[in-house]
């Protein structure tokens, strides 16, 4: 089989799906792209068994055939070629692949396409459509809070609950939790799935900058995303998601409102002085003043800053892991945030003061117990 394609165009399409390929896959053939050619259309698949990505491109050819091509060598070659039409000439009996450019000829050995694992099909039991902008916002807002503890697989993904009135995305690692809710995504047949972090990271990386619809079809074991000429199929995490609604406090009587960037930059400075394993910082709110301090007894390091804030309710002194708060503040799009608390050993909740009418975001963080409350 033979086809001609623009080198830069092919490189761009392959780069979109290349992220799936792992360096040391379970089956060696997964180090390849699967090329399937038919009627001038080339379908390329990359997979790690859990997640597969497929792209389709137009090439010049009248032939039909399949081959698996080593991904790394192919990408390196394309990256180093000046933009030009290249000819792929494939001998399907020996699996040898020849690339012919103006500069020369490159020969590499491919593998039998039939050895490439079959990508699961998703009978569209349930489906939804989300704009790519909203999708990437939902992913960005939640993915950082997922866990990488493989012993609790449910928390290594983002929980997506498609409801009749809204859709909720939840991520937690057991110490902090993000709940991101959209009123503009609804589904008639309510359903919940857990999408693995890797798939979402790939999605995040490939979602185009211009806004376009992303369609999602899913059943209980797989989800199927489609946007532009890219498809992604991922195996879902088949686990029970922790009962997250129960841990969100219904009433937090102590409320502090403060500038997001003021708090963020203060925490960044103070955390330099905090213990490097605990990242423990102390927040003391009295009247309209927030005092942030940290110390690392091992090195006799200590720091403290005072910021003014709006404060409702009793005074409080509470410890947090600065890394958690910093990450949350980095991922919340608002000038002012509200931090609500009830006790030094109960969850703190961060909410944006200004928000989009279609979205509702809540970030929760468990405190660190301080050994002394002055």
């Amino acid at each position, binding site marked *: 089989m033979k086809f001609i394609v623009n080198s830069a165009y092919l490189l761009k399409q392959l780069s979109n799906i290349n992220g799936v390929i792992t360096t040391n896959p379970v089956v060696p053939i997964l180090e390849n792209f699967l090329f399937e050619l038919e009627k001038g259309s080339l379908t390329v698949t990359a997979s790690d068994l859990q997640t597969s990505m497929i792209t389709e491109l137009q090439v010049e050819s009248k032939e039909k055939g399949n081959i698996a091509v080593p991904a790394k060598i192919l990408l390196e070659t394309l990256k180093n070629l000046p933009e030009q039409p290249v000819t792929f000439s494939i001998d399907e009996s020996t699996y040898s692949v020849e690339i012919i450019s103006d500069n020369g000829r490159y020969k590499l050995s491919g593998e039998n396409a039939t050895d490439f694992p079959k990508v699961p099909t998703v009978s569209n039991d349930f489906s939804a459509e989300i704009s790519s902008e909203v999708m990437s916002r939902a992913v960005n807002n939640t993915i950082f809070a997922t866990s*990488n*503890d*493989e*012993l609790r697989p449910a928390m290594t993904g983002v929980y997506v609950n498609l409801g009749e009135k809204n859709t909720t995305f939840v991520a*937690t*690692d*057991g*110490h*902090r*939790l993000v709940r991101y809710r959209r009123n503009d995504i609804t589904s008639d047949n309510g359903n919940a799935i857990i999408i693995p972090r890797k798939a979402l990271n790939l999605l995040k990386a490939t979602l185009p900058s211009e806004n376009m619809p992303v369609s999602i079809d899913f059943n209980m074991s797989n989800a199927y995303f489609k946007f532009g000429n890219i498809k992604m199929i991922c195996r879902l995490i088949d686990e029970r998601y*922790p*009962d*997250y609604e129960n*841990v969100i406090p219904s009433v937090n009587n102590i409320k502090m409102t403060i500038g997001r960037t003021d708090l963020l930059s203060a925490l960044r400075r103070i955390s330099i002085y905090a213990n490097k*394993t*605990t990242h*423990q910082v102390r927040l003391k709110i009295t009247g309209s003043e927030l005092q942030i301090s940290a110390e690392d007894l091992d090195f006799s390091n200590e720091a403290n800053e005072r910021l003014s804030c709006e404060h409702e309710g009793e005074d409080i002194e509470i*410890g947090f*892991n600065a890394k958690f708060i910093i990450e949350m503040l980095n991922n919340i799009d608002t000038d002012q945030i509200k931090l609500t608390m009830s006790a030094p*050993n109960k*969850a703190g909740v961060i909410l944006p003061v200004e928000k989009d009418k279609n979205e509702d975001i809540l970030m*929760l963080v*468990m*405190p*660190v*117990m*301080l*050994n002394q409350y002055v």
Partner: protein
Amino acid sequence: MEEAIVKPFRKIIHVDMDAFYASIEQRDFPEYRGKPIVVGGSPEGRGGVVATASYEARKFGVRSAMPSKKAKQLCPQVIFVYPRFAVYKEVSYKIREIFQRYTDLIEPLSLDEAYLDVTEDKLGIGSAIEIATQIKDAINSELQLTASAGISINKFVAKIASDMNKPNGLTFIGPSRVENFIEKLPVEKFFGVGKVTAEKMKGMNLHTGADLKKLKETELIKHFGKAGRFYYKIVRGEDNRPVKPDREAKSVGAEDTFPYDLTDVEEMVIQLKKLSVLVVNRLQKQELKGRTITLKVKYHDFKQITRSRSFLNGIDDEETILETVLSLLQQTETENVKVRLLGISLSNFNDVKINSIQELPNDQLTLF
């Protein structure tokens, strides 16, 4: 002129008690003195094995790990003594106390041998030979036992030295003699070289340290794997392994020597179940979770093997432990064997951060 910074040589002593178990028996029971005795299993009944033979018995060719029956053939008048491990432990502890007068860098290898690092000794004696002499004298006068000591600049040479003038020996291999000493050393004396490796080396016409020295590091690694690198260094007198004092528990385990040898896999499984319960109790008492599970099997001839498996996360539950040791047991020969002892242990307690799993301190509160 620039002054070269020379790292001073370390002073390592390897102390090895002479016929430890047998000497204690002869000390405590005058009727055994001057006679060939064997501490270990009796030649009748189950296949007893020699744990330690007195020097009188060694003259007849009786050696450790030899079947007691064979010992009896070699030396019909030999007296078999049942071991008293509690006593040996107690004596070992007293020897440790003697060591501690000179240094805290003590690495016990077993009840009867230990490495000491006396580069800086507590009493400021300065001479390792003097310290070794004092230790030997103290063991002799306080415990009425004899020990052999080897002194050198690293563990490897010190250990070989202690074996050179047994019993009651003291051998010093100074820095200038180390290379020459190693070159002359037959390969089977090298640390980690057992029968199989020694055969292999001889097949390659490698008989002494000098022969090994002729090979390039890459060649040694090619033939002997990771150990090759170690041989390469050690044959050049480089052995930087520190003397590691045993601080906290490195492993938690349980083992049992059975009143009769187990031949049936099902019986072994039953015993492993019992042991895993014991291990779990001990782990939980000490609030430890180990990442490595080790199965130990000792056969009727005292040959011992271990098989282990490591996990990403700490383990302290019975189910995982049992499942793992049973699968480890499958990796061993279970047909036509006589198993004398089974043991399970967990080690690797400190969580290594693999995969950047965040290990948060306990005072970080959790949600679920």
